[in-house]
């Protein structure tokens, strides 16, 4: 099964819609509740990162019998130092985004903790790609 979503940078009203849809689908498929919780955390954080940090993005999800693979590609500023970005507390979020309670620098660490496989690639000034896999 495949699912596709688009994300608009800066549009916080839409943030979480893909995660909400995927949560419902996984529930219907009877995936283990704990596993769904992890996937929802990781997907939400990746979704919000596109909204908060990039211009626009695409989510492509493939659900198989034993796993869910998620690819989030965006057009945006990219991440110059991925290891640094992965550190808890590191954030370049704008003041406006911080006032909303985002920008704690916990999103990428949350993704790391809640996925079985995670790969982040980025071209500075162009794009970021986050690829994650969770086994059921």
């Amino acid at each position, binding site marked *: 099964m495949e699912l596709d979503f688009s994300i608009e940078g800066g549009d*916080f*009203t839409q*943030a*979480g*819609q893909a*995660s*909400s849809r995927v*949560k419902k689908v996984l529930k219907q498929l009877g995936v283990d509740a704990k596993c769904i*919780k992890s996937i*929802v*955390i990781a997907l*939400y*954080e990746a979704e*919000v990162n596109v909204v908060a940090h990039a211009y626009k993005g695409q989510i492509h999800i493939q659900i198989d019998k034993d796993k869910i693979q998620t690819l989030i590609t965006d057009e945006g500023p990219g991440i110059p130092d991925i290891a640094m970005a992965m550190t808890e507390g590191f954030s370049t979020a704008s003041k406006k985004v911080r006032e*909303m*309670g*985002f920008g*704690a*620098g*916990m*999103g990428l*660490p*949350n993704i790391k*903790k*809640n996925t079985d496989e995670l790969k982040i690639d980025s071209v500075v000034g162009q794009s970021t790609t986050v690829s994650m896999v969770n086994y059921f």
Partner: protein
Amino acid sequence: MKVSEIIDQLGLKVIAGEKGLDREISGAYVSDLLSDVMGNAREGQIWITLQVHQNVMAIASLKDLAAVILVKDLEANANTIQHSNEEQIPILSSSLSTFDIAGKLHALLADK
């Protein structure tokens, strides 16, 4: 304990999501950082916060929280209220500070 049971005892106002008042409470989480709540809150908890925008309800729904308490009489945004009604997760409001309402809720839940 159900959400409806803490309303009188803590002097809360129900702002939205009345249909969710019989949700069962498993505990509470206090934070204004959304990724902290996303990563660490657990199903059935009450979330105490000063954030009033609709992403609060997106998180409450994704995390299956029991209810959200807004502190210091802060008013929820219109789309936050709408989302609360749709998801049937109540928004409650307190005149107290985070410290005071958290203390009271803690005592109430510990009592049970």
